């Protein structure tokens, strides 16, 4: 009786376990086999991660392989708002360390997301302080940050990048496709703490780092140019200033600077005025520096000889209702003296002998109707009317640099024609692009246009422009060790369609050494005061820059 009951009970327990086990097995079968695909997908999504690997942006070197732009790592702060418990307290601490608005941080932390940026590319100190807070859900990741060891040096040439390291301005923009590189990918397993497990990498496509740029800029010459330009800028209370130093034989831009400028490492806080690359973005009436074109054309066309004499009308020449003035009254002078003393009347008279077609022809040959083609973004050319649009009085204005506009770079290319034996050369800022292994992948050859003037005219012009420096309006450009040639210019600014009586652009264009020029330089100072003559404000900059640069180059050659 008892044993029968016991057996029944045993059977019941056994059946219970068998049934339970069967249910478990069935459930397991359901999960593992029937719903296999569904759960595998969820698990894969949790464990498998596909990450983009950012490439390193290319380095920018000067012509002597000195670094001008490099990449450094910096931390970017992010948060997982779903994990952060006391959001208000966390926001207060974070905003205090990062120096950002507390409400902004709180708003970010209040989002129903698992990832929000708090601040990208913070300082190492700030990152360390944040880590010390040990807030769960707050973390940092490393990002590459563009850094410029020379700070403001050549800022308008180098340019800037955005937060994602895409070029925004200057060479960083123009050569972005070379500098940027291509991102790589990794598909891997991650653990519960979202750490990648290297041993479970399913796919790895390495990033292709950006190529490096080798510039034609020389860091030392750039530094000299910026130093001297800054002196003039401050001394003459100028609104702006530009300098271009070029090798006339190759078109290599050795230095290009504008003021005001800005620190490339702190580009966010720069002023609107400091952003413009005035040397290539701004055009102005060049004034008397343009006489190099008139003089070259007249000599080339044999309309005048250096010793031809002209009556300079004692500084006042009436042509119809128009009166031409010279700054200093002159009587009869040779053509050479006219250029040396920068007589407007004499220059116009010489140009009239030549005629407007030829004047126009040489303006084109000297490049005043085209962009120079420099490899920098945003270049403009001066706006100059075609000959059809010239008025009856144009030939009384254009030869002395009025009714014509040019950028500082166009003027540099024009003076380089005289410095480079009559040829016009295309300026360049980048010499080579080299890949991360050091292999040259692109070279930018010297690009020379057709001859503008003959060697004979070149030699005559060099002698005339040397006279400007030695005994003319450009005496302040004269150097002790080297002979230079150049031309001063003081142009009235055009404001509301009229020539201003108190706002000028003082400029100087020149080359050195006269016998075998290796430098062509343009200096322009915008609205200097109280002194505003090109010979006073720009010529000393030319002298100091050329003197130091030639000394530097000769000591380097040895």
């Amino acid at each position, binding site marked *: 009786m008892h044993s029968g009951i016991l057996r029944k009970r045993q059977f019941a327990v056994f059946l219970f376990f068998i049934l339970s086990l069967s249910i478990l097995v069935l459930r397991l079968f359901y999960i593992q086999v029937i719903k296999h695909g569904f759960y595998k997908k969820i698990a894969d999504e949790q464990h498998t991660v596909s990450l983009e690997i950012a490439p390193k942006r290319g380095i920018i070197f000067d012509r002597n392989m*000195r*670094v001008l732009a*490099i*990449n*450094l*790592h910096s931390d970017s702060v992010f948060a997982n708002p779903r994990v952060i418990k006391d959001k208000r307290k966390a926001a207060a601490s974070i905003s205090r360390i990062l120096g950002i608005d507390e409400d902004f941080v709180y708003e970010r932390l209040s989002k129903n997301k698992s990832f929000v940026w708090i601040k990208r590319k913070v300082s190492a100190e700030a990152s360390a302080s944040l880590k010390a807070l040990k807030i769960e859900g707050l973390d940092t990741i*490393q990002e590459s940050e563009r*850094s410029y*060891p*020379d*700070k403001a*040096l050549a800022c308008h040439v180098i340019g800037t990048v955005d937060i994602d390291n895409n070029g925004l301005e200057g060479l960083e923009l123009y050569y972005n496709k070379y500098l940027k590189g291509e991102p790589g990918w990794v598909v891997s397993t991650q*653990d519960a703490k979202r*750490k*990648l*497990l*290297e*041993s*479970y990498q399913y796919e790895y496509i390495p990033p292709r780092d950006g190529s490096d740029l080798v510039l034609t800029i020389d*860091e*030392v010459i750039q*530094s*000299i140019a*910026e*130093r001297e330009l800054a002196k003039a800028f401050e001394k003459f209370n100028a609104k702006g200033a530009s300098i271009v130093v070029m090798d006339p034989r190759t078109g290599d831009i050795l230095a290009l600077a504008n003021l005001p400028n800005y620190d490339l490492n702190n580009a966010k806080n720069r002023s609107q005025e400091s952003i413009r690359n005035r040397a290539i973005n701004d055009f102005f009436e060049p004034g008397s520096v343009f006489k190099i074109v008139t003089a070259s054309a007249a000599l080339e066309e044999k309309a005048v000889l250096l010793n031809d004499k002209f009556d300079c009308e004692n500084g006042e020449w009436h042509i119809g209702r128009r009166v031409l003035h010279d700054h200093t009254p002159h009587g009869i002078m040779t053509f050479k003296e006219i250029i040396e003393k920068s007589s407007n009347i004499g220059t116009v008279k010489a140009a009239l002998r030549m005629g407007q077609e030829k004047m126009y022809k040489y303006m084109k040959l000297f490049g005043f109707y085209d962009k120079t083609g420099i490899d920098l973004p945003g270049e403009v050319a001066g706006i100059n009317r075609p000959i059809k649009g010239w008025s009856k009085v144009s030939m009384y204005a254009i030869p002395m640099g009025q009714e014509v506009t040019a950028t500082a770079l166009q003027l540099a290319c024009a003076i380089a024609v005289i410095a480079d034996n009559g040829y016009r050369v295309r300026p360049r800022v980048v010499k080579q692009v080299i890949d991360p292994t050091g292999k040259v992948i692109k070279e930018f050859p010297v690009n020379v246009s057709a001859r503008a003037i003959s060697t004979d005219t070149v030699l005559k012009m060099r002698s005339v422009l040397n006279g400007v420096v030695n005994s003319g309006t450009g005496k302040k450009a004269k150097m002790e*060790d080297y002979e230079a040639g150049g031309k001063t210019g003081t142009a009235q600014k055009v404001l509301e369609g009229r020539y201003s009586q108190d706002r000028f652009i003082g400029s100087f264009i020149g080359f050195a050494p006269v016998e075998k020029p290796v430098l062509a330089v343009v200096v322009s100072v915008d609205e200097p005061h109280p002194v505003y003559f090109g010979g006073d404000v720009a010529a000393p900059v030319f002298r100091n820059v050329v003197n*130091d640069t030639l*000394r*530097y180059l*000769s*000591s380097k050659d*040895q």
Partner: protein
Amino acid sequence: MRLLRSFLPIAIFTVASLMYVHQQVELVKLSYTIEKKEKALNVILDRREQLSYNIKNLEAPSRLESALLAKNIDITFPKKGNVVRMARPYVISGRGVSDMRSVGLEKRFNIFGFLDFLTPKAEAHQAEE
């Protein structure tokens, strides 16, 4: 015997499973070690980059100039005649600067030069780490 025969496959399966699990655990451990080493390497590389950046910063011509000017040291580039180019390699000895040939350091032709390897020479040894 019969029992052993029925348990053997289970034992083999269990050992194989344990070995597989062990292998996977080791792989995960290895991943963590790699990650740790990579992190350390990156820290060193970052430090190196930061230091070379600092050097470049300190060497910047504008910074050097302003630093020197602050100490009232005004430097200029050498004039034409200030730099003297030496035509041949020179050595500096106690008696001043002399031409290599005058102190007998110039390499001369030696008929028994091929026996050179027999004579002892000062050699640099690689330092042990």
